[in-house]
């Protein structure tokens, strides 16, 4: 890379390429430590930073700057990282959640409740074509995504299920009515199936197609 000899420590010689000011180097180290998933060694910092930088010195400054702050610059083996101050660990509880993918049965059940609410268990089973296990309903209730709705005024007065505000928040919906219908899912490419059997829905040849509401009536 260069043909100059390694600048020995303590030499007063000016490098050909001026290293950035120490304040700037401190910023660089800060950004790299922040963005790295793993602790970073001084050698790695040196390799990344502009020629002539002194990350070891920048680290001393940075470490001092973070003393007593909510996060600290800590040494991990022979590398460096930014970590939460130990006394604030209790704030991190919510970061320690282990997330699991919801089972297919649970997703389908949840989807049916969202689209058909209020819906009884028997109706869910009819739509899914298989029985719904107790555990599935319990899990969805525990997650606070569904809750009991009104009892249905039919024989046996079965309970119904509806989705909760928590469900809407989690899935980024303003209301359950905003869930797209099948046709819209298909239009968005979320449904990998062939186009509907009815012919082309586009009305280009439609001479009197200026009535907006009309054309949809003939689709599908």
């Amino acid at each position, binding site marked *: 890379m260069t043909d100059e000899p390694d600048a020995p420590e303590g030499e007063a010689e000016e490098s050909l390429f001026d290293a950035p000011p120490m304040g700037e180097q401190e910023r660089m180290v800060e950004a790299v430590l922040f963005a790295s998933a793993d602790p970073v060694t001084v050698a790695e910092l040196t390799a990344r930073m502009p020629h002539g930088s002194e990350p070891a010195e920048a680290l001393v400054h940075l470490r001092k700057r973070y003393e007593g702050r909510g996060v600290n610059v800590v040494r991990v083996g022979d590398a460096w990282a930014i970590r939460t101050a130990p006394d604030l660990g209790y704030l991190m509880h919510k970061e320690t959640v282990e997330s699991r993918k919801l089972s297919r049965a649970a997703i*389908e059940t949840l*989807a049916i409740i969202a689209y058909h609410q209020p819906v009884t268990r028997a109706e869910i089973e009819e739509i899914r074509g298989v029985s719904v296990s107790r555990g599935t309903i319990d899990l969805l209730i525990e997650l606070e995504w569904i809750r009991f709705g009104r009892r249905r005024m039919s024989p046996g007065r079965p309970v119904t299920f509806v989705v909760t505000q928590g469900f809407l928040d989690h899935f980024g919906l303003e209301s359950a009515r905003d869930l797209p219908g099948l046709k819209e899912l298909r239009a968005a490419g979320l449904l990998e199936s062939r186009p509907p059997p009815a012919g082309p829905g586009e009305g*280009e040849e439609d001479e009197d197609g200026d009535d907006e509401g009309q054309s949809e009536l003939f689709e599908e």
Partner: protein
Amino acid sequence: MAEDEFQADVLSVSERMAAEALIVDVEGFQGPLDLLLTLSRTQKVDLREISVLALAEQYLAFVEKARHLRIELAADYLVMAAWLAFLKSRLLLPPDPTEEGASGEELAAHLAFQLERLQAMRDAAAQLMARDQKGRDFFARGHVEVVEHKRRVTYTATLLDLMQGYARIRTRDEFRPFVMDRESVMTMEEALDRMRHLIGFAGEWTDIMSYLPEGWGNDPVRRRSATAANFAASLELAKAGAIEIRQGETFSPIQIRRKPND
């Protein structure tokens, strides 16, 4: 050549060159509106002051040229051409009070608006993409802290999972494989199964038709199916060396018997 002279009224040589270059690139356009926008650039004026009439001429010349060069244009382009031809006639002819709908000027103004809006969105998209982007210009925390002592399991599902799950259920019927009405159909497997059991008793030559199961001999549809199945099953059994088949002459009854072993 005659065509070129015709076009010379409306288009300069350079415009024609440009149109030809455009045709070669027709695949690269995102529809007729995109093409119109590109054509409008040759006018080198503010999109608000564009001459829609001239633009319509350019577009129609483009389509004409494509047709001349036998270049296949998508239907949208031809629809737009028809509409522009209509617009052109409205712009050129004095307004007919009996005709309904918007005037040529209104239609032209709307087209100019559409072009300006599309250009504006393109510029906006370019500005958006030129912004600093996460993961490219600035970065989120690389290491998400994990504190070991308090674990809670959460279940995740995305809206996409939810919608796809629902779509899966609601379209399941569409994907169910086609099943034939089997009421009056006998498969070869069924016949084979039956005959394997019966053939043990057939030491003598017997008419194959006598193997038809009860109730399959009268209804023509069932009879046909059962006969075919039995015949196929007989061939299968003969091939396996279980039976022998004979037929006295063409169309005479087919007879089978168990193959006398040892």
